[in-house]
């Protein structure tokens, strides 16, 4: 067990040691590696399910206090707010209202007349790493500048509505780390867990806590640049598929129980050519890309339902739609049932493993990976 904590002046970065190993392991390696469970503490860079509005309001209050402290006078202060960042209009409104309210709490008063006005120009900007809010106090060549770094997090919902079935997506995780799958699970003690599957292992995060456990999955003989994996909740617990392994995991103990090799690993290179194409049922009537998953829903009229992503590559925004495949007079017929559910980046995985369908998306605007639950609602 390795543990560390954020300490003043000391940085500790942990990453599973055996990630990407390309040479065959020895038996000793396996026993040391495969069941090593590591508990670490760290501050989340992109906290899942963070309440963004709270962050913005807290930051607005902090900026107001800094501005108040820097003002030459607290009377006759005029505040201008402009936004050149990716904040939405309603978020800007929240920031502006909170900022002005907190300035009032700090006894900063608006100008009663047009003379002796101190202008404070607040600009909501952003850099690659964070929001950056700047308050310029006074005018002329040398305004005093107050800068505040505001952590970036986001929360939104995309809704599509039209055809017989409505698809809705609800984001339940976002972060910079590439994930293969994500899901929420219940802990036997009553708590909730966020499970994130990466190419290196299964991260188990207790919701509402910074405590994270990592259960390492044995690496394959080679590493793939376009890996796949899935988390499945079964009656025995959690099963993780990370090609070429399928492993069962004890969530309470945060340990790997056992792993089986599901197939002989294809040789390095030309992975896709080495696999025989397995045709989806029926002629390809509904346009779809590489990500397709069968789902269960009461919206079916007797056929099999599928969620499918679009046909672009990984540089393009993507969509998900629902279609039904039925056999009519011996011929497989596909019928699209939903409008397109839009995402701000490619859907790199669609999963349905017994619970809600999930989409893993690489958001091209933020660069983050996002996990969504997709709900399927029958109209009428």
């Amino acid at each position, binding site marked *: 067990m390795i543990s560390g904590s954020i300490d003043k002046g000391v940085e500790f970065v942990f990453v599973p040691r055996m990630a990407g190993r*390309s040479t065959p392991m020895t038996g000793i390696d396996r026993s040391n590696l495969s069941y090593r469970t590591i508990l670490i503490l760290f501050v989340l860079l992109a906290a899942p399910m963070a309440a963004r509005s709270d962050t913005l309001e807290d930051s607005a209050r902090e900026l107001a206090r800094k501005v108040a402290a820097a003002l030459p006078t607290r009377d006759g202060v005029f505040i201008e707010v402009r936004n050149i960042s990716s904040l939405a209009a309603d978020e800007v409104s929240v920031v502006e209202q909170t900022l002005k309210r907190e300035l009032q709490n700090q006894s900063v008063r608006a100008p009663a007349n047009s003379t002796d006005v101190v202008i404070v120009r607040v600009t909501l*900007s952003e850099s690659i790493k964070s929001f950056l809010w700047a308050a310029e106090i006074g005018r002329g060549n040398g305004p005093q500048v107050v800068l505040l770094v505001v952590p970036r997090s986001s929360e939104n919902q995309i809704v599509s509505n039209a055809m017989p079935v409505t698809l809705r997506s609800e984001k339940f995780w976002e972060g910079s780390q590439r994930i293969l799958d994500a899901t929420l699970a219940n802990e036997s003690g009553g708590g909730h867990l966020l499970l994130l599957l990466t190419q290196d292992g299964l991260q188990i995060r207790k919701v509402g806590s910074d405590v994270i456990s990592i259960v390492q999955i044995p690496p394959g003989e080679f590493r793939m*640049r376009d890996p796949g994996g899935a988390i499945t909740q079964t009656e*025995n617990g959690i099963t993780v598929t990370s090609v070429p392994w399928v492993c069962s995991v004890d969530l309470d103990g945060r340990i790997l129980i*056992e*792993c089986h*090799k599901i197939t002989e690993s294809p040789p390095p290179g030309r*992975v896709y*050519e080495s696999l025989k194409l397995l045709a989806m049922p029926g002629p390809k009537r509904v346009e779809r890309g590489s990500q397709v998953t069968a789902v269960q829903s009461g919206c079916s009229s007797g056929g099999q339902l599928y969620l499918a992503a679009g046909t672009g590559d990984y540089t393009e925004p993507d969509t998900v739609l629902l279609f039904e495949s039925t056999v009519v007079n011996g011929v497989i017929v596909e019928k699209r049932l939903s409008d397109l559910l839009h995402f701000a980046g490619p859907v790199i995985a669609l999963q349905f493993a017994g619970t809600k369908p999930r989409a893993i998306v690489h958001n091209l605007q933020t660069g983050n990976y996002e996990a969504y639950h997709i709900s399927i609602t029958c109209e009428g």
Partner: protein
Amino acid sequence: MRRTTYPSHVRGSKATAPISLTARVFLSAVIMSLIVTSATASTSPQFGGVLRFQISERVMTVDPRQWPSDSLRAAATERLASLVFDRLVRFDDHGVTQPALAVSWQHDAQAKRWQFHMREGVKFADGTQLTPEAAALSLQQSLGNEFDVSATSDSVVILADHSLPDLPAQLATGRYFIFHSAADGTLSGTGPFRVSEWPAGDGPAKVVLTANESCWAGRPFVDGIQITLGMELQKRANAIAFGQSDVVELPASQVRLVGQRGVRTASSDPVELFALQFDLARPAIQDARLREAISAAIDRASIADVVLQRQGVPAGGLMPNWLSGYAFLFPTALDLPRTRELLTATGREVSHAAPLVLVYDSGDEEARAIAERVAVNLKEAGIAVQLSAQTTGSASKPSAGDMRLVHQRIASPEIGVALPTLLASLGEPSAVLETPAQAYAAERAPIDSFRVIPLVHVSESYGLGPQVRDWMPPRWGGWLLEDVWLAPVPAPAAGGTTP
């Protein structure tokens, strides 16, 4: 299905029931789904093919020990070297350092001693095992004697006599690659490609890279890359338009034109800076009011919109806003009344004053166009300028003119590295920058005194052929050619006629 057994003592204390039959059936469906989605992919990458690439720089070598001092040439060298070598750490899409050949790192309270724990099981392309000793030897040569680099059984230790808070970010860019030098002097890396051919000489040359089948991070999708170095602009533009190349580097001013020929283009965020730098030893421009008058007389918006065809943004600061977040605090607007006011204050006799000499790099087409526009702006404001095209090997202080048009590449997505690097290349003092306020203050110093006048930030741009897929470099430019793949060429319709 092959079953791997494990010692019972590591199976945990809870019941270790094997996966049930129902679960196995369900899992089989999941596994098949994973395989199907990979196999039938139209969006998933495909392997094979050779990527043809043309760039303008004639990079002579990717040897980290022979790194060019010019920032543009260094950037081109870095792009090529990153195909062959890896570093200890890398940047993710957010500019945050992430593991590469090192899997974790830590430092002492003063950030003077850093320990990087190495990834196991990695081999160089020549088959040699990557060891901490090999990594330490590489870094010692790149970092120089200012640092003491040593190896332990599983890690590399870097010691310095001063604080290095941004060391991981520094090691994620530039020349800090890990390499292995064979007895004959041949260099090998752990990157996605290996060098098959690298012609000597000064003229255009075709470099051939081959996929590294045993790359620790996975084999690249293309089988190889042919990169033609030192290609002229017109030939590059024609090559991409007529399908003779898959990717070509484009100057900003050509992006729109090439796009109008039906070529797909891709541009980074602004990552290059054009700025005027003054030689304060020259009497003609020692008056700061004259330098401020020059700054106020330049129409940066027209340089960005007209000269650079909207592939640039007016720059008031040294760092672009996407990197600093505060660039908007620096004014960029044309202010001719202020110029006239300042010229009057200096008592400069416009009609009798000798023209100021503006030096630019004769080999840089964009620099020439921008210098000409600056000269026009200053002439309209009453300041005569004489242009002087000179060959510049490095971005040193101006020596042959009153002012020099400098063209610099932003070196890193980490402002704590990028700004000090740029300031140093401009001959300006710098300091450790740990907060935006410190960076802002460091940037203000040369600008407020008008020793440097930023003009425009420019994007890095490429023309992409129709087969190129997953061109997704980081927003600050560069290449990720290991992730690029080539779509198959559609087969011609049978019969040759269309109903």
